[in-house]
């Protein structure tokens, strides 16, 4: 979301995801699962807003590269902090989950995701395209100075955007730690494919991103099935590169963007 909408390459985004996952893991014993989820998501959102205010707001005029590198530094810092507090081991089995035998033995988590994610995506789409807030946000991103001139509440808009993305990151982090578990450097792995989804899906096109990420998942699993797991990610990325070279705007994208 941050990349697709805010158009900032934010390396620390997936680390917010990891932090939310760790928070959830630590809190769900004492507080119970739902409270833990809520706290994790909210803290991720807070962290996102703080990052935006503290780091990106000051650098927005300095170009994308500066923001990107600073977010990289931030992500390194967050990762090392997590390594100090939680160690580098894979944190698994926070909740022991059992497949629903009657329903194509999926896990409850997967069913929630299956129906929840499209819902969230559609809501976001409506939010961005059919509300005043969304439109002014996109206007802000298209032309920052002009937005300031037109007295759009730029700061508030970007803060809201970051907060939403933080909440989503928190949710995905929880899903991941319930599923396969997290470790401090897990973010980077997911980051690459998140960018892939954003770019191939077309920048700013959320539904496209959803479809693209589905495709990527299927590609990886198929590559694991037919080939080897080592080659899987490489092959997938190769396909993505080919797609990007032949369709530089992404599949569902419109208008090549420049920096």
């Amino acid at each position, binding site marked *: 979301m941050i990349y697709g909408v805010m158009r900032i390459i934010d390396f620390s985004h997936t680390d917010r995801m990891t932090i939310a996952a760790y928070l959830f893991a630590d809190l769900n014993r004492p507080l119970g699962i739902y409270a833990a989820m809520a706290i994790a998501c909210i803290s991720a959102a807070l962290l996102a807003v703080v990052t935006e205010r503290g780091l990106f707001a000051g650098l927005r005029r300095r170009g*994308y*590269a*500066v923001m990107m590198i600073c977010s*990289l530094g*931030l992500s390194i*810092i967050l990762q*090392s902090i997590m390594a100090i507090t939680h160690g580098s081991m894979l944190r698994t089995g926070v909740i022991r989950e059992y497949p629903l035998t009657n329903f194509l033995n999926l896990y409850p988590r997967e069913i929630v995701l299956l129906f929840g994610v499209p819902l969230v995506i559609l809501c976001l789409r409506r939010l961005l395209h059919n509300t005043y807030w969304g439109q002014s946000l996109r206007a802000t991103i298209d032309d920052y100075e002009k937005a300031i001139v037109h007295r759009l509440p730029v700061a508030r808009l970007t803060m809201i955007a970051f907060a939403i993305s933080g909440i989503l990151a928190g949710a995905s982090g929880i899903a991941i730690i319930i599923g396969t578990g997290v470790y401090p450097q897990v973010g980077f792995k997911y980051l690459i494919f998140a960018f*892939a989804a954003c770019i191939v899906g077309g920048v700013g096109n959320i539904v496209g991103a959803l479809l693209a990420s589905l495709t990527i998942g299927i590609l990886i699993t198929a590559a694991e099935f037919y080939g080897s797991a080592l080659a899987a990610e*490489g092959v997938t990325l190769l396909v993505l590169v080919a797609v990007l070279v032949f369709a530089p705007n992404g599949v569902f994208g419109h208008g090549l963007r420049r*920096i």
Partner: protein
Amino acid sequence: MPDLYLSLGIKVIIYGLYFLSLSTLLLGKAGYWAVGNLANFALGAFIYACGPLLLGISGGLLYLWIAFTVVAVTILALIPGFAALRLQGDFFAYVSICCVEVVRVLVEKVAGPSGFSHVPRPPGLESELAIILISAFLFIIVAVWIDMFCRTRLELMFATTRTSKTWAASMGIRVRRIEVSMFGIAGGLAGLSGVLFAIYSTGTDPVRFSLMEAVILFALAYLGGIKSIWAPLLSAGLYVITTYALESAFRGSLQIYAPYATSLFFGLILILAMAFTSEKSVAK
């Protein structure tokens, strides 16, 4: 006693060569976010290591093989060059990142999970002293060449192309040709540094070719700056010495937390140096 500092110095110079190709040529001249230039580095090390280990090349022939490797990497580097004609800014950055991952997977597939080891050094380069001398020699030559390059009209042509391809084409500059050939030259240079690294470390570490490395190297290249010839050495020094020395420094005081404190400091340095210095935007 001097061995340690010698090998650190070798790393600094070799990565200085790499940064020459990345920051000075690709970022500075062509103006591309070539995050994935590390793929060329990896290919250089990989192809060189294939020679003696898989094809059984040995002795003086290794020098021929080095030349072949550099040429091969140059040719391979033309491919992202052509991709660059269609892609802009961070799109291209992303594609080149993907190239890094693909090359890493290739290396792991062929060379085994932890890379080649016992790659023989060519005759005359057995001792690390010889390696550091030859790398320093190469570095100086390339640096002088680039410095002179900046005073010819090629520099003007690149500045024009950076500003606007249409403008450049309207002045009769063959945009495609000069950009692709710049990618080729930079790729060959990165490949050369890769070869040197393979010779120095007598092996290839897949860890060195990972995505995180590529991004960190790019960040350091941007941090070091693109204008001067000394910038690459600074970036390389930051890359090689910072993490190493910081950890050795911390080890005494906070024993088992030294590695984490190191990376923490490294991130801090990145942010501070980026946030509190002014720079020109180099990316297209």
